[in-house]
């Protein structure tokens, strides 16, 4: 079964286009990861319009490789500039930057890339073994389970996404509401279309997401005072020796990768939590002579292996259940939907070659990451010297051409701009943006399954507690809300106590 699920996608993956785009995706991922302010999510968003015009496995290979490369690329700027390119690499600088200061920048980058690739491959093994099992288990799910699962995914991400519980949930609800715009699948009535034919299918998700994330980010970046600054970066040339340096920490590598996969598979937890947790555990288990925080190789190994293993973990619920683990995997899920594939047990049953192709592009991405990362890093060091005033117009241009290319529609461009303004307002008021994307993706899943569940129910909403799996999910949802409220109150109490003692 395992071998079957792997071999089915051979023909789809082994094409020059799919392999080439996966390799290019890694390079782009490393680039967007290394440049502070961008990151894997932004990379996926900006290149989604390009990807959806390609054959499915080539397109997904391109996007998954950006996710993989972007999750690692942040370490380059963290090590060389003490500025993590992405929040995922925030913990890398604890030991990566001191290593660079001690004249070991090349080793630090090499270890980061090797750990990321090996962590990613371990995540891939879990993905290949775990997702078919989860999909088989979920094949017995009916509308009540799917409706509750969608709520679980949304709650988890809204609660964990940072900031206030109310703000996270409000953002998630806004996403759900946006997903209702257009033609209602059941009644075939028009909702919130204002008699405009542009709105019959709702807003294009790419236009919404590009506006929310990319346009608002550029407006934020332009407020900075370092737009003309050329960072002083020394060239680093990691070699294949880094592989041996990394493998010396094999226990740490396995442990941190397992932590990464575990947190990745939990909706909402993501790479930041897994990288900090694995760093803390690695530090706690280290020998005193390793000197964590002063340039320990193990520190870089733990963070980088964990945050890339998270990518494999997050794809498990995304592919097996159709429930994304974070905003980046939500965009991958969105891309699959646009390409005409519905992630979940049906995809595993009816189109195993696509699932297999996705496994292959994921594994290949990590192999390419190791090769390209070690060979091409000096090039990315030069890229770090590009001042921001060149990048801002390039990103905005990519936003506008990419969005226009979706349907050759100026309306989409206006939607993008409008959501850019919403994104700015939300960022300014600390409303998280990721739950909006999750809400947009999960909105149709939730509404359709909720209404189907009520249609088949004899007792109205009691159907959700009458079925065992659904009842467990209801309990998890209640626990998530109670946990979220408890955490929010505790955080508020700590803040107030801190302020009082500060005063």
């Amino acid at each position, binding site marked *: 079964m395992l071998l079957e699920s792997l071999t089915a996608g051979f023909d789809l993956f082994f094409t020059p286009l799919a392999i080439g785009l996966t390799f290019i995706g890694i390079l782009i991922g490393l680039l967007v990861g290394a440049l502070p302010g961008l990151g894997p999510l932004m990379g996926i968003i900006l290149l989604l319009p*390009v990807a959806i*015009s390609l054959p499915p496995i080539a397109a997904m290979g391109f996007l998954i490789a950006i996710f993989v490369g972007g999750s690692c690329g942040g370490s380059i700027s963290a090590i060389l500039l003490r500025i993590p390119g992405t929040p995922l690499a925030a913990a890398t600088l604890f030991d990566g930057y001191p290593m660079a200061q001690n004249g070991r920048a090349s080793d630090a980058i090499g270890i980061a890339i090797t750990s990321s690739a090996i962590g990613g491959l371990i995540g891939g093994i879990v993905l290949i073994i775990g997702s078919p099992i989860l999909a088989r288990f979920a094949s017995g799910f009916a509308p009540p389970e799917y409706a509750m699962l969608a709520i679980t995914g949304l709650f988890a991400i809204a609660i964990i996404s940072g900031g*206030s519980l*109310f*703000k996270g*949930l*409000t953002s998630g*609800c*806004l996403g759900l*509401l946006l997903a*209702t715009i257009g033609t209602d699948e*059941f*009644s075939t*009535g*028009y*909702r*919130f*279309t204002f008699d405009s034919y542009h709105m019959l299918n709702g807003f294009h998700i790419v236009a919404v997401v590009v506006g929310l994330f990319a*346009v608002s980010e*550029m*407006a*934020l970046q*332009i*407020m900075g005072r370092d*737009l*003309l600054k050329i960072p002083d970066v020394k060239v680093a040339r990691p070699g294949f020796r880094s592989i041996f340096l990394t493998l010396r920490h094999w226990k740490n590598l396995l442990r941190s990768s397992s932590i990464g996969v575990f947190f990745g598979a939990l909706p909402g937890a993501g790479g930041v939590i897994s990288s900090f947790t694995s760093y803390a555990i690695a530090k706690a288990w280290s020998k005193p002579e390793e000197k964590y925080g002063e340039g320990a190789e193990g520190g870089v190994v733990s963070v980088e292996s964990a945050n890339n293993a998270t990518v494999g973990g997050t794809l498990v619920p995304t592919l097996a259940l159709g429930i994304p683990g974070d905003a980046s995997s939500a965009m991958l899920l969105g891309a699959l939907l646009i390409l005409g594939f519905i992630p979940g047990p049906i995809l595993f049953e009816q189109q195993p070659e696509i699932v297999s192709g996705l496994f292959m592009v994921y594994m290949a991405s990590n192999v390419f990451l190791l090769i390209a990362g070690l060979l091409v890093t000096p090039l990315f060091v030069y890229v770090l010297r590009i001042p921001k*005033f*060149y990048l*801002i*117009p*390039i990103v*905005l*241009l990519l936003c*506008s*051409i990419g969005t*226009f*290319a979706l349907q*050759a529609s*100026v309306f989409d*461009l*206006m939607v993008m*701009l409008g959501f*850019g303004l*919403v994104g*700015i*307002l*939300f960022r*300014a*008021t600390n*409303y998280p943006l990721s739950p909006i994307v999750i809400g947009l993706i999960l909105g149709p899943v939730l*509404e359709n399954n*909720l*209404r*189907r569940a*009520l*249609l088949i129910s004899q007792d109205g909403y009691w159907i959700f507690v009458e079925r065992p799996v659904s009842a467990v999910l209801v309990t998890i949802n209640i626990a998530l809300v109670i946990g979220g409220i408890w955490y929010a109150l505790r955080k*508020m109490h700590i*803040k*107030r106590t801190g*302020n009082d003692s500060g005063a």
Partner: protein
Amino acid sequence: MVINAKFLNWLVTAFFAVIIAIVFQQIATSMTEQGIASGGPYNNGAAYPRSISIAIMILVAGQIFVDQFIASNAQKESNLHTIRDLRRPAMLLIIFAVYLGLLKFLGYHLTTTPLIFIIMLICGARSIIKLLFVAILVAFSFAFIFEEFLSVVLPGGIFSFNIPW
């Protein structure tokens, strides 16, 4: 003039108020006329967005309560920005909006090079020749990649200005 967190919080509350008002207005008018504002789960297309809107209302009310009675003064007054700080992003958004508005009318090639050039000027770069060179290079490179490799037809505008690569 200073823009603080309190002002921004009211702005976002107003945004949600408008969204909720639109939802209820549409349910009362368009959806009722179509006959999808009542009935069972199959016919009632309004029940779900109505429930979500009510949830948003409750959550926003909860956030207002937190902001007013629980958040510390330091939090309420955080995120201070002067109008001067916002000058650059405002200019960027205005230029970008004008670009998007003119894109279909004047076409990609006549609008994109000036856009890139002006954004770099807004960022504070002043070496005109270099900026012009970069703007032309970036605009044409992107056009080549999208038109040649991805078969995207970029807007030619009223002059039908497209480059046959």
